[in-house]
């Protein structure tokens, strides 16, 4: 009979343990997984980049619904286990009693909140889970928002740097004399402080926090010396305490953490404990590498195999983009110790090694950390370094008189050198996996070895190993870069524009380290669009970064003339409009007039110089630009609908006109075409459009993601709505979601396929709040976009565009 395994806590340790368990003996246990958080396992380490806006939460989920389903895990997320009855072998939760044969406690730790007045006020947060991150992100949205971070350790500084990236004013309060005093010596602490101050973060060391002030919510933080820092949010990052309450109440042996032996067994048979809640040989751990070792051993113990957990040295890195910092071991001063220090102020480098009798005890590296793994390896192996003492500090590449070459350094690492500290993966394991499994991508290596899959700071090393093993067959550009000017892909650029608050093209190029001085014809129009979309009220459109058609608001033709297509709302026109067009055609001798495939009229072959006057004339009859040239809303085709047609069910013409009048002028990643048909006979061809509506008796069927150009694709059905108002809201929200997420030149059908149709349905149809927020953002941006570009130019804007600078006559003057 399969045994019942209950796991309390869906965190990093338990996720890893289940992986080992299912890999070794699938089906051996019926697993029930409790988690207090309303979500499954994710990579908690990466909450820092999520807070900074450099990653999304989806990217850090380690186990998704499919994975749990595939392994028959009964998921009880959002359900806290409140009590263990070890006699009856059941656990209690809101959902009742759950019996177990084996129990694993993996409750992690609880953030420590210092016991001062005001600590319970809303606005005081820890930095532990996604809810904390969301609360901080929300606080950062307020203009001029201020954050006070209490604690200048790893966690506090990652929070501070991330909040600063989000545009907040940030103060860090730190009790000790320098930052990260547990990992850094004062000199490295100083360099770090200077770097963070350079980013606009205020650091206050030796700060005794006395109280959080505020009536209904946190408003400020008061220090013992009377200093007051205003705060919209206060982040407590002063430390963690093993989460042991369940175990204590159940009568297990608990000291600082739940005491376990080498097999991870607690004092009670059939109950194991792993992770941060555990104490082993008087040590509690707060970094994932040893916890992953525990996970491996616990899985073996559960299966009755022999394995033992042994204490491990840990190394630390700070995950703040642009700060390189590595620290391992013990580096306190002592009479029997020697140190080697290297400083390079202009390059911002500081390295310090602490030795005892020619063995490395500790290493602090700031500014340049490539040799961290090498030092750490010698530290753990207790290598005698007397042979290379003279050059030790210059790193591995200098040994043996070689030149500084990162590839040589990686090549020289011994097979058992640890590459990924989080997951304890050594060099030979990575190289082995690459050759045996024919891996060619970083994702592949991550999937098979887990190397660089947690905090990601060793990604560079892993890539160098891949390069070494695969030679030219490895192309490290896992994402397709936007163009030759950058290595970043469109998604990264879009995210970083938001996260760093970049509001001009030069700012993007500077901050994201563009390789060219002013971009190219591929990236400039894309960046211009992203900035228009993200900062509709603040960004000044850069016309020189637009393709000619969008710059002069007409379509260029092969002979250098232009075509002009005015809007005919929903394809409906009148005698007056047609007469105006006829007059313009006569007056400017326009060579061709054609009905387009988009239900309107095209005038082709107009000279550029004539454009402003053509527009002025058309404007008098009420015409505005049809944007036939734009990555923006093009046409909304309609059929005659219920107004005339014997089959029509709703006013399809009216709805089409309403949509077009509401949405014209908006810029989009690629062109957007819509159509509304009055019944399923579909005379407006709505089912091959970017967005289409099929009217039916009971309402409006909304379709999206069709194509009828280079690719032909029928639409997907988004869903049925009852009223015209709702139809408009859904269409607008869908378009805004697309505007915010798609890559430049990616049409809706390609974007939707990438994101997933269900995800779009979820955000646009099911989640009313999200829908409304998308809708509101579209409406806001229309305030700045719905300006007729033709009338602007007819009255003089950009007039230099339309006439020559000079006309030369070089004949000698008689």
């Amino acid at each position: 009979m399969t045994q019942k395994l209950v796991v309390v806590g869906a965190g990093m340790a338990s996720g890893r343990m289940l992986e080992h368990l299912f890999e070794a003996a699938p089906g051996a246990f019926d697993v029930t997984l409790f988690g207090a958080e309303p979500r499954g396992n994710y990579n908690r380490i990466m909450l820092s980049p999520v807070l900074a806006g450099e990653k999304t939460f989806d990217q850090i989920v380690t186990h998704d619904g499919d994975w749990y389903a595939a392994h028959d895990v009964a998921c009880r997320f959002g359900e806290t286990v409140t009590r263990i009855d070890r006699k009856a072998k059941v656990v209690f939760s809101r959902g009742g009693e759950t019996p177990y044969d084996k129990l694993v406690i993996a409750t992690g730790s609880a953030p420590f909140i210092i016991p001062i007045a005001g600590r319970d006020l809303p606005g005081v947060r820890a930095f532990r889970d996604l809810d904390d991150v969301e609360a901080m992100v929300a606080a950062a949205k307020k203009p001029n928002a201020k954050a006070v971070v209490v604690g200048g350790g790893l966690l506090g500084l990652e929070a501070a740097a991330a909040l600063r990236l989000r545009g907040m004013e940030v103060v860090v309060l730190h009790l000790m004399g320098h930052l990260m005093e547990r990992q850094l010596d004062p000199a490295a602490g100083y360099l770090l402080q200077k770097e963070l101050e350079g980013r606009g973060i205020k650091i206050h060391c030796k700060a005794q926090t006395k109280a959080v002030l505020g009536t209904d919510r946190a408003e400020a933080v008061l220090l013992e010396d009377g200093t007051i820092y205003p705060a919209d949010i206060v982040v407590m990052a002063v430390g963690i305490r093993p989460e042991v309450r369940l175990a204590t109440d159940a009568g297990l042996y608990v000291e600082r953490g739940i005491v376990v032996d080498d097999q991870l067994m607690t004092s009670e048979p059939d109950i194991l404990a792993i992770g941060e809640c555990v104490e082993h040989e008087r040590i509690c751990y707060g970094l994932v590498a040893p916890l992953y070792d525990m996970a491996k051993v616990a899985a073996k113990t559960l299966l009755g195999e022999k394995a033992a957990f042994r204490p491990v040295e840990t190394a630390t890195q700070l995950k703040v983009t642009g700060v390189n910092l590595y620290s391992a071991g013990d580096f306190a001063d002592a009479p029997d110790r020697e140190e080697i220090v290297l400083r390079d102020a202009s390059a911002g480098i500081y390295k310090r090694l602490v030795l005892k009798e020619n063995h490395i005890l500790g290493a602090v590296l700031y500014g340049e950390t490539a040799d961290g793994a090498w030092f750490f390896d010698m530290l753990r192996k207790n290598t005698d370094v007397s042979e290379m003492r003279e050059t030790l500090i210059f790193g591995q590449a200098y040994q043996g008189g070689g030149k500084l070459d990162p590839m040589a350094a990686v090549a020289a690492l011994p097979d058992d050198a640890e590459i990924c500290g989080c997951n304890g993966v050594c060099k030979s394991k990575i190289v082995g996996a690459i050759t045996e499994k024919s891996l060619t991508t970083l994702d592949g290596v991550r999937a098979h070895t887990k190397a660089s899959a947690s905090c990601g700071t060793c990604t560079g090393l892993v890539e160098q190993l891949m390069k070494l093993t695969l030679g030219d067959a490895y192309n490290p550009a896992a994402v397709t870069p936007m163009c030759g000017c950058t290595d970043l892909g469109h998604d990264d650029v879009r995210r970083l524009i938001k996260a760093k608050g970049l509001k001009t093209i030069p700012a993007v190029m500077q901050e994201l380290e563009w390789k060219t001085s002013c971009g190219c014809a591929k990236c400039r129009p894309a960046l211009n669009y992203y900035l228009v979309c993200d900062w509709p009220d603040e960004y000044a459109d850069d016309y020189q970064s637009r393709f000619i058609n969008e710059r002069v608001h007409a379509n260029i033709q092969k002979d250098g003339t232009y075509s002009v297509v005015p809007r005919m709302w929903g394809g409906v026109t009148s005698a007056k409009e047609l007469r105006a067009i006829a007059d313009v055609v006569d007056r400017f001798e326009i060579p061709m007039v054609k009905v387009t495939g988009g239900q309107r009229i095209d005038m082709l072959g107009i000279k550029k110089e004539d454009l402003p006057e053509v527009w002025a004339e058309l404007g008098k009859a009420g015409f505005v630009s049809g944007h036939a040239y734009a990555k923006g809303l093009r046409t909304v085709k309609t059929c005659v609908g219920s107004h005339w047609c014997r089959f029509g069910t709703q006013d399809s013409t009216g709805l089409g006109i309403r949509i077009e009048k509401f949405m014209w002028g908006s810029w989009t990643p690629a062109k957007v075409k819509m159509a509304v048909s009055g019944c399923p006979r579909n005379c407006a061809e709505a089912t091959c459009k970017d967005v289409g509506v099929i009217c039916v008796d009971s309402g409006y069927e909304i379709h999206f993601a069709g194509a009828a150009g280079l690719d032909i694709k029928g639409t997907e059905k988004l869903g049925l709505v009852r009223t015209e108002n709702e139809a408009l809201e859904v269409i607008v929200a869908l378009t805004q979601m697309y505007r915010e997420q798609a890559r430049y030149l990616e049409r809706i059908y390609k974007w939707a396929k990438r994101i997933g149709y269900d995800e779009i349905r979820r955000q646009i149809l099911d989640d009313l709040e999200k829908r409304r927020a998308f809708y509101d953002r579209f409406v806001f941006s229309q305030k700045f976009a719905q300006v007729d570009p033709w009338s602007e130019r007819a009255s003089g804007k950009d007039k230099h565009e339309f006439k020559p600078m000079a006309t030369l006559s070089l004949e000698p003057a008689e």
Partner: protein
Amino acid sequence: MTKTMQWAAIGRLEDIPRRGARCVKNGGMTIAVFRTADDRVFALEDKCPHRGGPLSQGIVHDGCVTCPLHNWVISLESGLAQGADEGSTVTFPVRLEGDRILLGIAAVAEEAA
């Protein structure tokens, strides 16, 4: 008959937008005058070596212009097509005197008797 170079003042630097171009008509020919992001000025015949596209309408970047019709990239300095494409466009010398732009046109003039 001698070949002479005539310099004609065609306007001021501020008449051309940065990373943009303006046209100068010279008889039947159109000359595109470009201004780069760092205020250098170049002149080319407004005709792409590919299929005659109007280069003045392209996007200007790093000393090059991308033709609006089929995206060939042409060097402003040499008039040569970049990358794998082959061909060239006639270039004209340009001088900046203060912010005045002078365009040099080689012309064939009657020698004064």
